[in-house]
């Protein structure tokens, strides 16, 4: 049986999936909530919200490290997702036998630590106090928490991944980029399997404030579950959130050889950078169009073969409009009848993890034959004529999915996934 695609490249399949979001821990819990149209968005309890315009988020508050800072939480999120994915894949938990690609947020010293360092310093002066205190304290944990390499290094150590683990960022597209890197490595014949992870536990007060200052977040705080409303007329920005997803990518040949269950196929990846603006996309949507078309071409499928689109759907006035424009250009007359829904309506924008979480949900959509809804779709935007699978899940045979991720800084990545190897 053929294990190469029409371009002669090894077919890449998915044999394990793990995830955590504000909806819960693990695939089962998440899928149940997602298809039930439940929202994970809630009032912020992690830090005081005095003076903040935004008082809600999709934070993951139920883990041990939820209040231990961004590095600790991002690490735990990744760790949980990886364990689940590897277990499902049925490969060794300590000798994964392939490379690791981790999409993660940039790291900074936590404010709590910065303040503590300063308080403990002798000079109580300027930056020299901090450095002197750092030197005196000699805290290896704290040093590690401030290094970009740490989380991936620890995962590599624990799971026995091969080579130097790669930590990457393409902003909101990061999770998809991690998958793309894994696919490319398998196609190059460098490995039989790769671990692609997206994790983000960086919802600090400063992160919230930074996005607020860029007018990116919705301030519809009440009720929290209704705040994320992609494609609606009164959408007003995204909801900051946290989560993780891990995918075991494997060559079809290797998966078959060991009798692994195939959860879906990574048929193609496409990307295109935007040169228009640091936060806004080119008004004609051409980079997004190019990314979609590149993904379709890479997958060797035509636009007509897409049964469902997992939208980037952030609920910002701009993204949803641009996404509609770009997709309408690619899919033409068919567009109003292609189901397209946004997971972000329920889990918020999980930033570095989004592309990976949403790819996982896309695969589950095909496997379960159920399309998760876009919730909070009460007032449709008349300028956006889409079948957003409003409010309630829909049973449907889905064989091919397009998943979009359009990032800040103009980095656009799209994935095309299939249910079965052809």
């Amino acid at each position, binding site marked *: 049986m053929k294990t190469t695609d029409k371009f002669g490249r090894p077919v890449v399949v998915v044999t394990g999936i793990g995830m955590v979001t504000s909806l819960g821990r693990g695939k089962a819990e998440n899928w149940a909530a997602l298809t039930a149209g439940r929202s994970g968005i809630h009032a912020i309890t992690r*830090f*005081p919200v*005095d*003076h*903040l315009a935004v008082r809600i988020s999709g934070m993951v508050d139920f883990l041990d490290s939820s209040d231990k800072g961004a590095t600790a939480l991002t690490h735990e999120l990744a760790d949980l997702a990886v364990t689940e994915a590897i277990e499902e894949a049925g490969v060794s938990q300590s000798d994964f036998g392939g490379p690791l690609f981790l999409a993660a947020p*940039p*790291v*900074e*010293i936590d*404010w709590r630590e*910065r*303040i503590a360092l*300063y308080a403990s310093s002798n000079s109580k002066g*300027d*930056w020299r106090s*901090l*450095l002197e205190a*750092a*030197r005196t304290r*000699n*805290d*290896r944990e704290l*040093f590690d928490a*401030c*290094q*970009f*390499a740490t989380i*991936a*290094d620890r995962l*590599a*150590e624990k799971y026995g991944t091969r*080579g*130097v683990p*790669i*930590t*990457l*960022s*393409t*902003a909101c597209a990061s999770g998809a980029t991690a998958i793309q*890197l894994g696919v*490319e490595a398998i*196609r*190059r014949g460098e490995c039989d399997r790769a671990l692609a992870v997206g994790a983000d536990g960086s919802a600090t*007060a*400063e992160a919230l*404030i*930074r996005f607020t*200052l*860029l007018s990116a977040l919705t301030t519809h705080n009440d009720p929290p579950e209704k705040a994320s409303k992609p494609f609606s007329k009164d959408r007003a920005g995204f909801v900051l959130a946290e989560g993780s997803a891990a995918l075991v990518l494997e060559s079809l040949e290797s998966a078959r050889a060991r009798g692994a269950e195939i959860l879906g196929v990574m048929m193609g990846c496409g*990307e*295109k*950078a*935007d*040169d228009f603006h*640091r936060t806004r996309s080119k008004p004609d949507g051409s*980079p997004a169009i190019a990314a979609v078309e590149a993904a379709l071409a890479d997958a060797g499928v035509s636009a007509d073969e897409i049964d469902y689109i997992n939208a980037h759907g952030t609920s910002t006035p701009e993204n949803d409009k641009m996404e509609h424009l770009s997709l309408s250009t690619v899919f033409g007359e068919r567009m109003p009848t292609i189901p397209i829904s946004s997971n972000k309506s329920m889990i918020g924008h999980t930033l570095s993890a989004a592309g990976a979480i949403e790819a996982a949900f896309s695969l589950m959509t095909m496997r379960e034959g159920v399309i998760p809804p876009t919730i909070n779709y009460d007032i449709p935007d008349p300028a956006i004529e889409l079948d957003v699978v409003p409010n309630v899940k829909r049973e449907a045979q889905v064989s091919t999915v397009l998943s979009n991720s359009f990032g*800040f*800084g*103009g*980095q656009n990545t799209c994935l095309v996934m299939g249910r079965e190897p052809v």
Partner: protein
Amino acid sequence: MADNDVLITGIGIVSSLGEGTDAHWQALTADAPSPVLDSERFSPYTVHPLPEIDWNLQIPRRGDQRQMETWQRLGTYAAGLALDDAGVKGDEALCATMDMVVAAGGGERDVEVDQAILDASLTRKDHGVLLNEKLTTELRPTLFLAQLSNLLAGNISIVHKVTGSSRTFMGEEGAGVCAVETAAARIRAGQSSHVLVGASFQTEHPDMLLAYELGGYLNRGAWKPVWLREKAEGGGVVTGSGAAFLVLESRRHAETRGREAYAAIDKVASSRDRRKDGSLDRTVAEIMQSLPLPGGPLLTISGASGAHAATVAERAALDSRPELAVRGFSTMTGHLKEAQFPFALALAALAVHRKRAYPPFDETEKPLEGAPEAALATTIGYNCFEGAGLVTRA
């Protein structure tokens, strides 16, 4: 010689030694190459500072410059130099299809805002509320974009119109190693035809020094060449501001557009030594064994950081091969973190192209006569990850 051999067709480098390949070649092949140091501004730490740069030369729009702090400006500038050098700058078709892999840390925080918060935190107990108060009112809204790791690539796209694929790797020196390794692998496999790869690092900011000093890695006191700091006060690393971007191209692509190359990247190897059980020198030796070293005297551009354990281990491994003529270039530029490996490759390629080795940078290095047919570039992370690349005549 194969169609998909990986060639270096453009180099853009900036450091305390100056800008561009000529300035660096002059500085490093002088009779007695010497570093440019600043031991005052960040005392007790010495840094290799950036020279005065006319950003307009590569970032013509003031509006673009204002959206960035120094780290992103430096990287965008060096990327422009590399694109110019490769004869690609301004070629819409080539830039629109050019892929990019950037190795990045993070950008500069507002020191004054942070200091005000720290000072207030000494007398207030409600730190969470204090943070909210100050950050919502004092932060410049676009500063976040100047800090975001993937926005260096974003700015390169906006300013230089490089809009193929865009990837940003994070992870200190290892990110720089993996960026080159991935770019080269894509070209060899026919997944890319031309890639812009590189990094910048701006050390002249307290937080950049703090990141090292939290692990006690910075050298204190009088400056010494990178191989001679074991007995010095502190952790051994002297940092520098700098950037290195390379244009990598398949042989076929370069030949089709009639472009001569500096050199070829024959192979890149990388590893993840556990750094716990004193095995690093063995790991470095293994990396070298995995590369098709030509035999005979070999110019070796070492990205040794000065960090005690890693530097001693690397030097031991290099010295176990007496044919290697080692040049610890951080002696001249300071440690450039994410930019370390691309910079090492740039210097290696320059020497191969100009058919001359650099003179020794200190008393422990030995001269190398003749025209190098190849050069080895190494970057052993001060804390984790290792990489090396063999550069050969194109």
